[in-house]
């Protein structure tokens, strides 16, 4: 336990408005208060959302590369019929790990990276609501990722597909450690997702700058909030499913054991109740990136902010009642098919609202064709294609024809790469100056975009045709007389072209990190609050709490002829690590929050939970017990009430309540 203060802070204080000039003594003090010390100590203990956000981005990108290499190996195997590069078992493990990696270890974490870095800056806050929980969320994500890959080098990786259907994933057909690693790894990863989501929800409700009422919140925030709310309700479903599966496999319960009254379909229900909302969780924040950044390159505010924000939330709400459309071919009653088919079509409405809003923004704006614009416009195009093939498969008979074929593979790649990867790369071009203080290359970026965009369509469009020609997904090879030779060859060539585009992007990234031109605070002339800070931002984000009066604080003068927000003069919070808590609806000042300092507790809690899950995986109960004790110890240290956070008061003399220093 570290005790820094002998007496708790006073119970109340009068907050006053003032300025803190850059370079002043007050500003230096703020910097010292919020700075993470250099070296490995700071590295392991930091709770700064900016460091954590960048770690999320880089780690997720490393997983993207791993998943991409797996995909390329599969495309070599499938390029020609009757290929023998991979054995069926190796192919099973590769396509499973490809799915697991891309969907769980890349798609959401990369968006969490953006949101972790950007939320407090966009919201005008000092940090996330729970900085230590933020660090825990990252460590557990990293450890769960390593855990899921732990059996890969031994040739024992998960091998029953990313949706891991029972009974194939049961002990009868799958005796090795493959599925145990997947099951326990997913429960561990679920903890990371859950605590991360809690943090976003509470940050949204409590940490917005004063004056930032709900209708002044940028769309990226709505996207991540909706995803987080969805995750809080959906992740328990999949964690439970995987835990029950593990119990079936290693303890001997009967949940999915058909011989003893269990039901294989229970797995599908629990899995898809989670996995369909998850699909929206991995796209809504990315759509938010586009809704906020695309208008910057159209030189006008987003058309239809309110409908777009509402449709973001509506998508997730409807997303909770469409899971059966993954199960149309399982023989469930026709009434259920009709209901879920209809619900799946309804979800096209909020998606279309957003799409038309983006098109109208481009149409009525004065587009500036910089690299981020290309990625965002490309996203709109790919979203329309992926969305259309999705609506098609909402029709039950059509789905029966195409389920488990490459048509579905094409659809999901258009949706996930189109709505996730393109906005993400566009977002990195857009916020790279904020992250690093330097610009990425316009010329290389343009070349990279066209290679990525061309490669993507060459790779994935023919998959629609392969599916219509009846090629099932997840087959390790095919006979030469099936008529699938040409489409597969084209897909493989496109896949390598796409990978080349990713390489160009990475080269630009590394090159610009060192050599890019210096960016300045607001190189794109963007309207939102993160661009009001220096690039990269100071450790305390904002010297004073800015007061917000519109959605576009930096564009107010040109929109209404008058600056209405106050960004350089605001509430002063400088008595140690402090942040302003505001009311949930209007963003009125509500409480002065004492923020925790850097702490090792999140790291050790992460390590202890990794030990616990390793113990379960090895069925070494003593190791699991050890891990559990470690978790308990870390949590007690973490939550022990502390004077300097105003959580306890055991000074001998009762001090005067309400004393103003």
């Amino acid at each position, binding site marked *: 336990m570290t005790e820094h203060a002998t007496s708790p802070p006073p119970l109340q204080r009068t907050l006053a408005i003032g300025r803190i000039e850059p370079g002043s003594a007050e500003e230096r003090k703020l910097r010292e208060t919020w700075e993470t010390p250099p070296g490995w100590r700071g590295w392991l203990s930091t709770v700064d959302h900016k460091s954590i956000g960048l770690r999320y981005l880089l780690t997720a990108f490393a997983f993207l590369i791993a998943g991409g290499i797996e995909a390329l190996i599969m495309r070599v195997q499938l390029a020609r019929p009757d290929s023998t590069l991979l054995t069926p078992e190796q192919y099973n493990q590769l396509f499973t790990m490809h799915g697991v990696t891309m969907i769980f270890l890349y798609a959401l974490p990369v968006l969490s990276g953006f949101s972790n870095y950007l939320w407090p800056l966009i919201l005008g806050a000092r940090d996330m609501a729970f900085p230590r929980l933020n660090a825990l969320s990252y460590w557990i994500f990293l450890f769960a990722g390593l855990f899921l890959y732990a059996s890969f080098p031994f040739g024992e990786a998960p091998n029953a597909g990313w949706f891991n259907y029972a009974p194939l994933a049961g002990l009868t057909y799958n005796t090795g450690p493959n599925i145990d690693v997947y099951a326990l790894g997913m429960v561990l990863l679920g903890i990371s997702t859950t605590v991360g*989501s809690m943090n976003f929800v509470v940050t949204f409700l409590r940490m917005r700058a004063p004056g930032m009422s709900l209708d002044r919140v940028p769309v990226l925030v709505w996207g991540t909030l909706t995803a987080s709310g969805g995750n809080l309700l959906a992740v328990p479903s999949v964690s439970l499913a995987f835990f029950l599966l593990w119990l079936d496999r290693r303890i001997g319960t009967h949940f999915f054991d058909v011989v003893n009254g269990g039901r294989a379909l229970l797995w599908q229900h*629990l899995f898809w109740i989670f996995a369909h909302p998850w699909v929206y969780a991995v796209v809504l924040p990315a759509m938010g990136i586009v809704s906020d950044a695309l208008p910057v390159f159209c030189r006008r505010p987003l058309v239809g902010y309110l409908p777009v924000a509402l449709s973001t939330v509506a998508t997730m709400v409807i997303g909770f009642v469409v899971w059966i459309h993954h199960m149309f071919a399982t023989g469930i009653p026709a009434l259920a098919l009709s209901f879920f088919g209809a619900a799946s079509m309804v979800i096209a409405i909020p998606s279309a609202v957003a799409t038309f809003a983006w098109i109208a923004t481009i149409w009525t704006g004065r587009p500036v064709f910089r690299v981020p614009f290309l990625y965002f416009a490309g996203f709109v195009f790919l979203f329309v294609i992926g969305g259309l093939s999705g609506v098609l498969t909402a029709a039950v008979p059509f789905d029966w024809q195409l389920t488990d074929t490459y048509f579905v593979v094409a659809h999901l790649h258009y949706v996930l790469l189109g709505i996730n990867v393109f906005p993400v790369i566009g977002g990195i071009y857009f916020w790279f100056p904020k992250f690093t203080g330097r610009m990425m290359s316009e010329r290389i970026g343009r070349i990279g975009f066209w290679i990525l965009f061309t490669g993507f369509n060459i790779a994935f469009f023919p998959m629609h045709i392969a599916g219509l020609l009846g090629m099932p997904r997840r087959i390790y090879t095919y006979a030469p007389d099936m008529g699938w030779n040409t489409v597969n060859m084209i897909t493989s060539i496109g896949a390598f072209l796409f990978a080349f585009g990713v390489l160009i992007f990475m080269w630009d990234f590394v090159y610009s990190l060192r050599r890019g031109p210096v960016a300045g605070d607001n190189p794109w002339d963007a309207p939102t609050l993160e661009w009001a800070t220096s690039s990269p931002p100071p450790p305390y984000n904002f010297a004073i709490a800015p007061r917000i*009066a519109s959605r576009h604080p930096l564009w107010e003068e040109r929109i209404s002829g008058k600056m209405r927000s106050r960004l350089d003069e605001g509430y002063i919070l400088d008595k140690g690590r402090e942040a302003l808590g505001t009311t949930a609806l209007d963003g009125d000042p509500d409480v002065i*929050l004492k923020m925790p300092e850097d702490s090792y507790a999140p790291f050790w809690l992460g390590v202890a939970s990794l030990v616990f899950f390793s113990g379960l995986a090895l069925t070494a109960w003593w190791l699991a017990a050890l891990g559990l004790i470690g978790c308990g110890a870390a949590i007690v240290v973490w939550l022990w009430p502390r004077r300097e956070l105003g959580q306890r*008061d055991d000074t001998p003399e009762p001090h005067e309540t309400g004393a103003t220093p």
Partner: protein
Amino acid sequence: MSDFAEALPERARLPIGSPGERSGGWWGCLTLVATEAALFGYLIFSYLYLASQTTQHWPPEGMPKLGLGIANTCILLSSSVFVWASERFVRRGKRGMGVLMLAIALALGAIFVGIQLKEWADHPYGLTTHLYGSLYFTITGFHMMHVLVGLVVLAFLLLWTALGYFDRARSAALTIGGLYWHFVDVVWLFIFATLYLSPYVLAK
């Protein structure tokens, strides 16, 4: 909201630190309750789904016995009252009474665990005997784990209250820990209704 930043107060007198329901922890605990409630919802969904699909006699060992279960439910629910009271006392400066109330709550929780363990031992079936046994022991086991965590939480609250950490103005830990305990109690009602009562309703 006004269209101008100047509408915000020039000076605002605000509480500092962790003031009860304005503290971050309170809001964080609410999100924890939401996600945990979803977890128990999915457990109950699994039970009802499998019960509705079964071709076996359900429950296989005959209808659940209600007497002890109802008594135990009352014991658990009454513990919540004492947790609530302990916070009230601490806020009025009566620390000793606060500690006493927490001790009573802790004892009631421990009695609940003891009776539950006796019920477990009395069943002729176990976790792996049949599907119903898997469901019964997994669902009550999940709840039992939550009760045990709750008891540890109460024990630390008792310790901290006894050490004099909390007073009139600083008792957020009691508010937040209490919220978690109330959740553990309330969710038991749903589990009890599912495991003990629903077979009687569904049998008709």
